[in-house]
């Protein structure tokens, strides 16, 4: 399904943002909020995984139904998962296209990566104490 990506803050993300190692941060930001009809047409159901693909990359997220969501739009809270599919192009204004990025939404049963795996995929070395 072709959709437009919107990212931004929400309360679960805000609550967990100071504890990035915690599971509830991962739960809060690795979610793709979708319109219920879109989700149904995708043949997936809430809690199922979808892969979002854009010009910048692809990421696997857990789906969740959001009432006010328009059709053809998806909302992912700002965080490492959303930033995997946002391009660094800033139109010479310094601000990347955090909203309005066209994405392909495909149901999948791939696992959702941990933040450690995400960071290690771009050259990081996870530290846990």
């Amino acid at each position, binding site marked *: 399904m072709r959709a437009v990506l919107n990212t931004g803050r929400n309360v679960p993300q*805000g609550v967990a943002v100071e504890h990035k190692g915690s599971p509830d941060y991962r739960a809060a930001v690795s979610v793709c909020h979708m319109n219920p009809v879109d989700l149904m047409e995708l043949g997936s159901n809430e809690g199922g995984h979808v892969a979002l693909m854009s010009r910048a990359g692809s990421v696997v997220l857990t789906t969740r139904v959001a009432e006010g969501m328009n059709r053809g739009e998806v909302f992912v809270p700002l965080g490492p998962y959303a930033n995997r599919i946002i391009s660094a192009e*800033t139109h010479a204004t310094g601000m990347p296209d955090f909203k309005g990025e066209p994405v392909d939404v495909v149901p999948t049963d791939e696992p959702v990566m941990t933040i450690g795996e995400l960071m290690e995929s771009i050259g990081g*070395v996870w530290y846990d104490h």
Partner: protein
Amino acid sequence: MIIKDVVCPFCGCLCDDLDVEVDGQTIIKVQNGCTLAEAALTGNNRLPAPIRRTATGWEEISFDDAIRETADILLAADRPLLYGWSSTHGEAQSIGVHIAELLGAVIDNTSTVCHGPSILAIQEVGHPGCTLGQVKNRADVVVYWGCNPTEAHPRHMSRYTTFATGFFVPEAQKDRTVIVVDTRRTESAEIADEFIQIERGRDYEVLAALRAIVRGKGSILPREIAGIAREQLFRVAEICMKAKFGAIFFGLGLTMSSGKYKNVRNAIELTDELNRHTKFTISPLRGHGNVYGSNEVFTWITGYPYAVDFARGIAFYNPGETTAVDILRRGECDAALIVASDPGAHFPHAAAAHLAKIPTILIDPHRTATTPLCRLQMPCTMAGIDAEGTAYRMDGVPIRYKKFLESSYPDDADILKRIHDRIREVQGS
């Protein structure tokens, strides 16, 4: 023991009426704060000591070694990037600017991925704004454009606008008309008197249309603009022109959508037009606790609110060239110092990936998504909890964070001062 009037360090509202119950060095209860405040104040799993990456993993090192290594890395670089600054206090920020000046580095704060475009717009047409108390006491029309305060600034409506009783607005909900403009029916839209659903990325056209209506040129407008019927725009323009005191608040819906700062510029020019009819103000909903503080500190020292490049010995400013995301995307910087922010989580991965390729130092109390990308991290105090200092609210009002816990961690201003002195000493200046 209850400490009264604590200042919450989390978001731009900088609520300063929190009561925090403390037992010894642990926080038991936070009253009057929103859920974000409680999370920000109570979380406490900080790094025990500075850590450095080794060939096989990580090792703990002393602050002295970490500081010396940081200074040496930054001195050896030809184009170091100093990024972040928004969740710490003014004193640390000004030392950071002086470090950048010594090194000939590029320094930028988190406005670059938040309200940087609003600053660009203000630099083109100015900023007719006011402090939040003016809105609380007078506003009978409040417009939330492209923002969702219930999620990002939970107490904004109850402390300053929709539900706040003011001197001239005794019954808030009856006397205030709330208009929400967003691409989707957000929680904030539920409580609005008027909800305008706008097509994504077309704010510029709608704001231009409103300006034309307020100038009396509405007749040339087509029937529908960006999915909004012309009649609704006429009605909203009428409400605004008849207001006694109107206040527009805008968020990342304007700054992040296509057109970026031009959307904000059009919103400001709409406010200018409305000021010819009645009193109207416009204010950005700044995200971080002290991002406005970093803009103020950068401005009085270098002249520019963010994205300042000292490479040529003078302060040079050009968002799109000297902003952190662009410098990382082009791979220009050969060392980075990240303070009080998390580009690992909040930058596009193509930009964040460059941090892993160069020696990056992180000064942050928690383990964050930038930790894996950096070579060395130093934990420090948290402004507003065990460190005091100046923070600037989203409307520019300076408030001082309270320090209500003792801490074994050094203040990030002390760490930065030692780095600064070490650099000066090596440079022999």
